[in-house]
């Protein structure tokens, strides 16, 4: 027991009785975190879980309705529509981001490329820029009548496009915003994976006559598989929870084409239908967890 004075210690400072015994220490260390975590995460989470089984409009007594909120949502067109929008955005974002991110990371990992730190900063600038500012820039730049993008199109003789005002373009424009904002972060994560690959593997492959493309597919991709998986899961969570981007840029329109799962959830709340909102969030958690497990599985069994 370290609590006692160590016998036979002749040299150095005399060992005092530690003020914090080893058995008690971890509890003391987690205490500040646990206090905040229980008060502002666990308690609200349990509250929401209970709320999802009630009909409650924000005041008065909550009425217990069992699974009614869940069955209502599962038969509701808007709920499935919002999931469909998020799935469509996922398809527009995640594959592009993984391919583009890996390509940029591989190029930046090559010592022959000059100005590498400039590129790293450039790709991360959108990531560190406040979303509210970014979203406003997006609204102004993609404005149908006055925006810079349509001015560019006019310069080369193309007609105006309703980037944010037509349902066929609003979703890709939103996806572009998300890609622009977050790809730099994915590049850095993938770069960390690439840097843990032993350079000797590439030398061996080059000696065996493997081309650059061949090396990418046969060495780089398999070896950064875990990092790729991490990025895909991270972005799946982000896309399905996406709320702030459509909230600021399109407010879900036009014709609900950009009402993401995250935004739809918020609409229940603004309507005052708190029980349904709570049920919607737990359904979303199930979807996101299911997808994450699926990717983890898929990428594991690929070898």
């Amino acid at each position, binding site marked *: 027991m370290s609590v006692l004075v160590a016998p036979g210690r002749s040299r150095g*400072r005399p060992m005092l009785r*530690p003020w*914090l015994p080893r*058995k008690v220490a*971890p509890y003391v*260390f*987690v205490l500040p*975190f*646990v206090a*905040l*975590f229980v008060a*502002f*995460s666990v308690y*609200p*989470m349990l*509250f*929401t879980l209970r*709320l999802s089984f009630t009909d409650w409009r924000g005041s008065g007594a909550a009425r217990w309705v069992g699974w009614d909120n869940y069955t209502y949502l599962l038969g509701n067109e808007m709920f499935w529509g919002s999931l469909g929008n998020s799935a469509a955005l996922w398809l527009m974002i995640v594959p592009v981001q993984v391919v583009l991110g890996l390509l*940029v990371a591989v*190029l930046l990992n*090559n010592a*022959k490329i*000059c100005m590498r*730190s400039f590129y790293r900063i*450039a*790709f991360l*600038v959108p990531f*560190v*820029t*406040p*979303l*509210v*500012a970014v979203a406003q*820039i*997006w*609204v*102004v730049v993609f404005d149908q009548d*006055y925006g*810079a993008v349509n*001015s560019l199109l006019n310069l080369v003789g193309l007609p105006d496009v309703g980037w944010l005002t037509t349902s066929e373009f609003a979703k890709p424009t939103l996806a572009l915003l998300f890609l*622009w904002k977050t*790809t730099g972060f994915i590049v850095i994560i993938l*770069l*960390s*994976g*690439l840097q843990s690959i032993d350079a000797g*593997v590439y030398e*061996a492959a*080059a*000696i*065996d*006559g493997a081309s650059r493309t061949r090396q990418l597919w046969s060495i780089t991709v398999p070896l*950064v598989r875990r*990092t790729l998986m*991490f990025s895909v899961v991270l972005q799946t*969570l982000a896309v399905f*929870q996406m*709320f702030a981007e459509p909230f600021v840029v399109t407010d879900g329109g036009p014709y609900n084409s950009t009402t993401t799962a995250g935004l739809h959830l918020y609409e229940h709340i603004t309507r005052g239908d708190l029980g349904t909102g709570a049920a919607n969030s737990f359904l979303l*958690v199930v979807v996101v967890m299911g997808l*994450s497990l699926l990717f983890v599985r898929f990428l594991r069994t690929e070898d």
Partner: protein
Amino acid sequence: MTTTHAPTPAGTRSARTRAAATRPPRTSPRGLPAAVGSQVFLLLLALAFLAPVVWALISAFKPATQIISDPLGLDLTALTLDNYRRMFADVPIGQGFLNTAVVLVTKGTITLFCAPLAAYAFAKYRFPGRDLLFGTVLITLMLPTIVLIIPLLLEMKALGWVNTYQALVLPGAVDAFAIFWMRQVIADVPDELLDAARVDGCGEFGIFTRIVLPVIRPALAGLAVLTVMNIYNDFVWPVVAASSERMATLQVVLSTLAQNITGNRVGADYATVTGELLAAASIALVPLLIVFIALQRHFINGILAGSVKG
């Protein structure tokens, strides 16, 4: 290393590949155009990433009517501070900066102290309840943050904290991601190092401050930048919990300005609001941009140190 490189059967090796093996790769004639191509590709992509931000920073100095009549043009003689002047007169942006600064310092300190400390306990001690607690942390990682907004707001009302600094600072001060990340990093610190300090008479808390914190400094710097960024950019919770003019953070001020734009879709008003908006957006992004560029080495190295290995 899990993959072993299978040598190509000798018979399939052509003369060309054998030549390639003896030649240093960097002088290969095929390599040069590829390198130029990569460089051009990266440069164009980087410019595309920078363009919207640069455009906004420049346009904020253009006369408001020109921003919408000629979004791509730049008349150097017409540059003006009018957008900034009007924006300062219209919205409490100074107060916004002050509120953001207060929240940044207090909330940032709490996060950077509590998260590594708790993560240290999770990573290096065995104690009953540890796995249950950490499991709960992982579950909250999956939960959309909007889910917690209603109960949190009700909690703030019950505590009488609506429109106070406590409401801005305490919820979310230690988020699940910070704990998860720091635990990963601290788990890599060798146990021998901690035991050696213990033998030398270092107390449990001393081990944390004198051994663990210095060793994980790169990741800690990464967490610091990420935390500052998240707090500075957060706007959903501040809009809900503290939207009064006195308590509005910078992002709340910005988002109220953005709501004006949908109301003024026509003519000169639209131009004025757009100008103010770009001025406000520029002024909000410049401090963070400066911090980021000054600390980018720490930030990038921190993330590289902390994320999962390939």
